[in-house]
């Protein structure tokens, strides 16, 4: 498994890129330790590893964002040393980031030719017609149906991604690095992206695909390189190995995937009747104490919209909510919190945390008002104690409660969001994509935490786009489609196939 291999098709090609003995230290940490890395033309190479394993640093060294301490980079047979990303792009290496570098108010064509606009005539006026025409040719090479004259802000995330890829092609990229490209895509959009990536591969372009989603890695990859703790720890061919093999390499040990324990399920804690909004149509369900209720569905099925309505973020047109049998009137998140609900939102960075505040301040954010009145003094004693208690209970990895939350890893940040709600002893906890973008080890920790909370008698609503997570964690599963609940399965009867059949 550790011997170098040729790409899947077995052709003896020269690698388009070779990185040898790459090391990079940041003060106090060896981010990359003597890493070897190579990509062949016409290959989709998947680079996997936990957060902090060094994947991003390696790609940033390659694309000229970071300077390396030692090692050599050979690209297209010549030794290169990129000082800036621009130099890398000019040589034919483009990195596509999760946040796109597109100007939303410009057209697709204008974005693709940004900084190298085509001009005509003596006055060098911008030649929109030929830019549009060339853009059209690029897009059709990708098999994308987007008008060159469309404004980027009107495109879907997936389409914007295609524009980024087209931009890379227009710069004659020979190697395209994609960092978590599917994180915000629906499964259909992901399929289209994969087709495009395969098409690029067949045209001889090398692709480096950095992802957390191992199922996808196995779908798309020709070869997988695994990193851990700044080192390359292994190389696999998808057709000859399993996800378990990759995980074992990533974490350095085998992993039990879903640590769900039996919980005692008793009386109804939350009942939702006929909730209707402009996106949700007449949704009713009940949730019992100790129960984990999974919500499955495609992106856009209305799951997030449903909980936004329940939590008082979006306006309800109709519907009633009962908590422990009592009707509650929730018109704002404040009301929801007062009624005993907690929400771990979809995007912890933009919705869950105040990143520049200390861990302590984030943990106490929701509870601080309950433990002191508006104009009265903050209850510092309660706050410090809560922070200390939950850092220990949830095993939040932080130098201390005063650490700035932005400095924590994704998994630990998510635990801080959970801790924020647990200080309030809520009756119902709503988790929207609780493990999105966090690494495998931390994921398992969050899963066992969820299971433990259910055992303690909380009612838990779990929304996830990862079906294995829904299947592995839920006691009961609701499937949503087009703003409605279309099916309900008990844990024993649910399978991926049944759920997908209802969701589509």
């Amino acid at each position, binding site marked *: 498994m550790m011997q170098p291999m040729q790409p899947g098709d077995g052709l003896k090609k020269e690698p388009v890129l070779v990185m040898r003995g790459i090391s990079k230290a940041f003060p106090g940490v060896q981010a990359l330790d003597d890493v070897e890395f190579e990509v062949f033309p016409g290959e989709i190479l998947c680079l996997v590893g936990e957060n902090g394993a060094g994947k991003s640093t390696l790609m940033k060294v390659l694309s000229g964002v970071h300077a390396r301490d030692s090692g050599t980079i050979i690209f297209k047979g010549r030794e290169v040393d990129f000082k800036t990303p621009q130099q890398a792009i000019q040589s034919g290496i483009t990195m596509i980031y999760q946040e796109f570098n597109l100007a939303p108010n410009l057209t697709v064509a204008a974005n693709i030719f940004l900084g190298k606009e085509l001009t005509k005539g003596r006055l060098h006026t911008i030649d929109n017609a030929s830019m549009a025409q060339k853009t059209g040719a690029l897009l059709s090479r990708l098999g994308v149906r987007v008008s060159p004259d469309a404004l980027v802000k009107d495109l879907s995330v997936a389409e914007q991604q295609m524009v980024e890829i087209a931009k890379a092609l227009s710069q004659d990229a020979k190697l395209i690095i994609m960092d978590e490209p599917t994180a915000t895509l629906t499964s259909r959009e992901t399929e289209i992206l994969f087709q495009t990536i395969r098409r690029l591969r067949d045209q001889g372009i090398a692709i480096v695909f950095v992802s957390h989603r191992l199922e996808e890695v196995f779908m798309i990859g020709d070869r997988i390189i695994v990193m851990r703790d700044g080192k390359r720890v292994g190389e696999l061919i998808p057709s000859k190995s399993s996800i378990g093999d990759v995980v074992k390499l990533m974490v350095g040990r085998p992993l039990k995937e879903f640590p769900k324990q039996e919980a005692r399920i008793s009386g109804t804690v939350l009942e939702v009747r006929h909730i209707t909004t402009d996106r949700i149509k007449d949704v009713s369900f009940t949730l019992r104490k100790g129960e984990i209720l999974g919500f499955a569905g495609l992106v856009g099925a209305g799951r997030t919209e449903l909980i936004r309505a329940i939590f008082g973020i979006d306006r309800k047109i109709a519907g009633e909510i009962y908590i422990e049998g009592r009707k509650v009137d929730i018109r704002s998140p404040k009301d929801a919190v007062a009624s005993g609900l907690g929400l771990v939102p979809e995007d912890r960075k933009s919705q869950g945390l105040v990143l520049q505040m200390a861990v302590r*301040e984030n943990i106490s954010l929701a509870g601080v008002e309950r433990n002191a009145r508006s104009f009265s003094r903050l209850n510092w004693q309660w706050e410090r104690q809560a922070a200390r208690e939950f850092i220990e209970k949830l095993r939040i990895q932080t130098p201390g409660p005063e650490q700035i939350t932005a400095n924590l890893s994704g998994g630990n940040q998510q635990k801080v969001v959970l801790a924020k709600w647990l200080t309030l002893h809520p009756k119902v906890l709503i988790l929207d994509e609780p493990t999105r973008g966090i690494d495998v080890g931390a994921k398992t920790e969050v899963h066992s935490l969820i299971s433990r909370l259910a055992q303690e008698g909380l009612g838990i609503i779990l929304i996830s786009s990862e079906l294995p997570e829904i299947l592995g964690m839920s006691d009961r599963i609701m499937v949503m489609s087009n703003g409605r609940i279309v099916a309900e399965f008990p844990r024993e009867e649910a399978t991926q196939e049944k759920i997908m059949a209802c969701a589509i």
Partner: protein
Amino acid sequence: MELARAQAPGKQARRSFKMIREVNVLIALIVLSTIIAVLNPRFLSPYNIQILIRQIALFAVIAVGETFVIITGGIDLSPGSMTALSGIICTLAMANGWSVTLAIIATLAMSALIGLGHGLAVTRLGIPPFIITLGTYSIARGAAAVITKGWPIVNIPASFLFLGQGIILGIPVPVIIAVAVAVFATYILRFSVIGRHIYAIGGNIEAARLSGIDVNRRITFCFITSAVLAGVTGIVVASRLGQGQPAVGTEYELIAIASSVIGGTSLQGGSGTVLGALIGASILSVLNNGLVLLEVSAYWHQIAVGCVVVIAVLSDVLQRRAGARRALIAKLITGKNPGGGVSAGLK
């Protein structure tokens, strides 16, 4: 034990990091004062010091109000015009036979109402703070001129003059007012639940809202605070001058914003302190005062103020960049070493 030991350095690091800004600005203030004192020893004369601290007191009150709004990520362009209008309303009420106390209460109530209007317009109607307070900037200034037809309002009771001209135990009353405002503001921002909410809103309004914080009410509170403190300033200025002048307070909003920013308040929201605003107001006052003492043409004052603001923001940006680099490194360290957490979860 392990945990307690780990906490100490983090706490210290954060506190010192937060204070760096104030210390830097304080050093700048001392250096500036020293230079001026060397060039013209009259700077340190008791008479000049008195003038100076009165000036600082005035700027400080208005800067503190502005700081509240800026921490939430908003901005208030109205304090200068509000200073003029509230001075006019207060003196007008007294000229019409209202008692001093009643006139002051009415003026502050009017200011609070205008602040409430700003808050509601921003939170309920979604009008950007810049626009709604720009409206007041113009309307309040215009109203002051319309009411007075441009003439000062005189005929005010002598007892009213105490607020601006009086001295208690050798300390001018406006300075006492400013200290009281600073103490109150520090309490709110640093020690109360509201203050914590205000910083959280400036840091991430969505996360604050989803945590059950009544975001609209908190933002409105900040606009009311700013407007009321502009009202206080207007009353003190009117008392100091002994008349209601429609033209006072010109560019006070810029001084308020500049003081706040020099003192380390980020226009993006989420950070800023009362102490910083006080030091910022002091720097601008010392600069003004020094340039007068050094007989620099008044035309140059604005240029000097502008330069100080740009330098302050520039140093902030550079420091933030260094901070971001530090944060990145810290992230790599914590991210690099998740082994402890991972294995702990698995055992």
